[in-house]
């Protein structure tokens, strides 16, 4: 059962109870994936669009383990290297799932999996014109982020570090700049390695965090999913609470007056 939540994530007019979005790749099997999802409290998962295995139609399907009626599927375009590939993939996804909220990612070099921003901008334009609500994986460049927002993207999703690297938030200055200028949700997509990284992203004022490998490749994915749930909540609360200013020197917590 969803917990009562006065601080939901709202993307394209849809309300999500959790600010954590998890991937469904790299798990041992779909059962472990479903258990991690449950532990994470997430109500949105990214999914990939691929050819069915015609020679084995009875192979386990994701939808048998994670019910798309209860958990929002966010189809991605992972593996697409051109705008046309991405648009073709998401049109098929829309037909398969009958929803129009999608994650656009147009990659470049497999070594770093940085987004190809020229192709990303082009694909975003085509998709928005075709009625899609586009959550877009992008570089941490505030100029591109602004262009994507102006175009009508539903969420801006800059990377914190390369996909699957687990290096943590390497670019807090840029993430913060994007957060400050953006009116639609900003979600860090890629780079988180452990719970404190997720908290850092949320403390910077991000509206959410999307992660896959940090949970799937933990020694105990289900325990890590739980840790991420708490980290995202803690980071969000700390952001809303407003941190104390940084000071150069110590400031005693006990009053000096009245010393014996």
């Amino acid at each position, binding site marked *: 059962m969803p917990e009562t939540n006065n601080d939901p994530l709202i993307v394209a007019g849809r309300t999500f109870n959790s600010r954590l979005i998890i991937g*469904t790749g790299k798990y041992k099997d779909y059962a472990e994936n479903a258990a991690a999802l449950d532990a994470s409290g997430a109500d949105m998962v*990214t*999914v990939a669009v691929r050819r*069915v295995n015609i020679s084995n139609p009875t192979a386990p399907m994701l939808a048998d383990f994670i019910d798309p009626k209860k958990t929002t599927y966010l189809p991605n375009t*992972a593996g697409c290297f051109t705008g046309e590939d991405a648009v073709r993939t998401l049109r098929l996804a829309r037909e*398969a799932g009958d929803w129009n909220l999608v994650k656009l990612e147009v990659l470049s070099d497999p070594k770093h999996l940085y987004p190809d921003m020229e192709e990303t901008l082009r694909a975003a334009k085509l998709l928005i014109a075709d009625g899609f609500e586009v959550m877009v994986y992008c570089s941490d460049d505030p100029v591109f982020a602004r262009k994507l927002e102006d175009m009508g993207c539903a969420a801006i999703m800059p990377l914190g570090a390369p996909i*699957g690297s687990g290096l943590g938030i390497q670019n807090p200055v840029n993430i913060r700049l994007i957060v400050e200028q953006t009116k639609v949700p900003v979600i860090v997509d890629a780079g988180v390695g452990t719970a404190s990284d997720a908290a850092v992203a949320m403390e910077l004022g991000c509206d959410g965090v999307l992660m896959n490998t940090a949970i799937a490749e933990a020694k105990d994915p289900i325990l890590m999913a739980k840790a991420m749930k708490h980290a995202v909540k803690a980071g969000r609360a700390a952001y809303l609470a407003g941190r104390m200013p940084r000071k150069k020197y110590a400031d005693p917590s006990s009053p000096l007056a009245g010393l014996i």
Partner: protein
Amino acid sequence: MYLKINGEDYADLPDGMTVGALLDHLSLPRKKIAVERNLEIVPKSTFDAAVLADGDRLEIIHFIGGG
């Protein structure tokens, strides 16, 4: 009739098959998949009306785990 399905050759399929009949023939669940025929999406509502022609290229996709 010959079809190319997901990049593979299928040579001996009955002539005049509809997309719906092909999916049944392959034991694929209609609800969880989408079909593209010669780069055009075949809407689910037209599966039983869409008659396939020799040489058609089909892509049949579904959702799998991904990040």
